[in-house]
């Protein structure tokens, strides 16, 4: 307001009323005396240059008291910020229940809810196919290598004259037409990876989880699955086999994939398998986390193909959350898991008492 501006000093016009209440640091000009906090520009000039009779300060720095910041006064200056827009709740996203189990008894202890955008997606085989092909391409080593004619060891000498021999004309002995020669356009190490839109890949991930959920092949554990301490080290493999056979999750029933947030040594070592490697002479290699009855992977290692490969997936809740939150780039901000939970007001996490 004009009436209020008159009483303020010149420099405060630039900063606005906000700076009026703060103490200002003024720079000393030529004197090395430290300026007092309340020294004004005029006074500094006066002190620095004049030694004789003091003159009147050029500018009278009388700061009139700043009116207190009241809501009404503030409202006259600036309108209040608008209320944050909350879109209406999407009626097509319905919640679905998921039972949480204890390990190792697999007792259903409680249940939680997830939105249909995460666990009730329709089956899209084409999207799953794209995702699996993309993963397989990126997994390829691409290290096949052959020697072409310029790489085969040998000289470039023409092995027989162009004309007069009665046989076909030949250059060097490295030609692919000859035995011992190079391969004609044989494979070379290259990158086979393809690209897939992140949104499509994320949709495929959630579609795979939805498929498992719809068929009852997704078992969620409350906490980290680890073998109890009272089971002796030497008994753990057999105990784990007994557990899987009891719950019909072993080899006879299609095998099980355990997905955990972090690697658990006890679980991995209880699933000790024997992988065969070596061509020709059969050799056996010990592998942890992959046995005849089950496989264990961490969240960082698992991919869409693993989720669909075995008979069922036993996943730790923390791992499931990480998977769902890490693969929702195709959803709008209000459809993401965190936002959906906030919109449901915490009621989404209603658990059985």
């Amino acid at each position: 307001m004009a009436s209020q501006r008159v009483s303020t000093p010149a420099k405060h016009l630039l900063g606005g009323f906000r700076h009026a209440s703060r103490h200002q640091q003024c720079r000393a000009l030529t004197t090395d005396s430290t300026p007092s906090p309340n020294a004004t520009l005029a006074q500094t000039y006066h002190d620095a240059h004049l030694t004789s009779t003091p003159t009147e300060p050029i500018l009278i720095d009388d700061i009139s008291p700043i009116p207190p910041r009241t809501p009404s006064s503030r409202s006259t200056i600036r309108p209040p910020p608008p209320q944050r827009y909350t879109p209406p709740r999407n009626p097509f996203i319905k919640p679905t229940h998921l039972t949480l189990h204890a390990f190792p008894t697999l007792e259903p202890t409680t249940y939680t809810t997830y939105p249909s955008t995460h666990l009730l997606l329709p089956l899209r085989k084409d999207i799953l196919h794209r995702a699996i092909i993309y993963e397989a391409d990126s997994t390829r080593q691409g290290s096949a290598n052959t020697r072409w004619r310029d790489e085969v060891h040998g000289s470039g000498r023409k092995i027989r004259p162009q004309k007069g021999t009665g046989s076909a004309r030949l250059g060097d002995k490295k030609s692919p037409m000859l035995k011992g020669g190079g391969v004609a356009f044989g494979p070379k190490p290259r990158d086979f990876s393809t690209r897939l839109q992140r949104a499509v890949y994320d949709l495929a991930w959630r579609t795979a989880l939805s498929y498992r959920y719809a068929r009852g092949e997704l078992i969620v554990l409350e906490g980290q699955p680890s073998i109890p301490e009272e089971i002796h080290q030497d008994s753990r493999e057999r105990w784990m086999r007994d557990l899987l056979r009891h719950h019909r999750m072993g080899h006879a029933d299609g095998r099980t994939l355990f997905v955990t947030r972090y690697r658990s040594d006890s679980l991995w070592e209880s699933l000790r398998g024997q992988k065969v490697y070596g061509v020709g002479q059969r050799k056996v290699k010990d592998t942890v986390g992959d046995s005849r009855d089950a496989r264990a992977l961490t969240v960082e290692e698992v991919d869409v193909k693993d989720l669909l490969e075995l008979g069922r997936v036993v996943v730790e809740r923390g791992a499931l959350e990480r998977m769902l939150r890490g693969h929702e780039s195709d959803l709008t901000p209000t459809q993401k898991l965190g936002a959906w939970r906030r919109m449901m007001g915490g009621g989404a996490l209603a658990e059985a008492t």
Partner: protein
Amino acid sequence: MRETLFGSKKSGEVEKQEERSQQKSGVLAKQAEQRKGPEKRQSRSGRTYEVAKIVHPTETKDYVRSNTWAGLETVGTEEWVRAKLDRGEKYNGFTPTKRATLTNAEWMKLLHHVAVEVLILHQVGRDLKQVCYPRVDGAKTWRQTKAFDITSENGAPHVTSSAPQAPSMILQAVLEKPGSEQDQSSLAREVKEVIAMNMVVNSEASWMRTTLRDANIRFAITKRLVQLTGKRIPDVTISNATTLEDLFNAFKTKEQPKKLSQTEQLRGLAARVPNVKVSSKRHTPIDKEKQVGRWKLIEQELMARNLPVTGSRLPQAKARIDN
């Protein structure tokens, strides 16, 4: 002289008697040994093991030497070593070892029994988790649940019984704290007794249509049924279930169609997709001729010419190129 050299009859008889008594004592000793069982010793790791009996082929008449290794213990392999080191801890799961196979009527009785228990706890305001806790010793809650009626009151399920003490008896039988571990034999006995009850069950019964909007009630009923029978149902089914009938349909044994043409998907195909025909048998060339109406003529002519009507195993049946 003869007696000293060859022995007398009496001495011979005495010797035979001694032999017989020795044999008897040998047999008795063996019998005593068998009754006692094999000798048990403790290994260094603390495991008890049985000492194998040394069998002399000359002494045992029924000893048969094996020519193959079938049925014999293989000693010294990696598996044998692992089995020896194994401490033998048993796994105990939440579900029973043997999954119960029940008929649809039995499932209905069990569902009614479990639903009544859960709804009584819900009505009284107790924690529904308690339905899975062990029961008080000697409690037979199925005798009381049999007489309960499940109805809907203001959209919520409600149970009533003609016997006034029945609810309190059930509530007293259900423990408030788990106390001891669940005994699998008592669970099996409960299932056996419930399905053996004399109860009229009808799939059209009104209690089946009771709505269960509260997810906690659905969860508690499902959990108890899983504990009793070992049969698990998908979470999506529990989520979508609104009535007791939905839970029954999820748990019951579905009849598997014997032929693909009898499945639900193909039965409705004729109505949904009119240009597709579904038949239960393979559509052969004879069926095609029959459709057109030519078959009876073909059959008549073949029979008139004394030729086989069906089959192609005759040498003249198929055209051949002779080189």
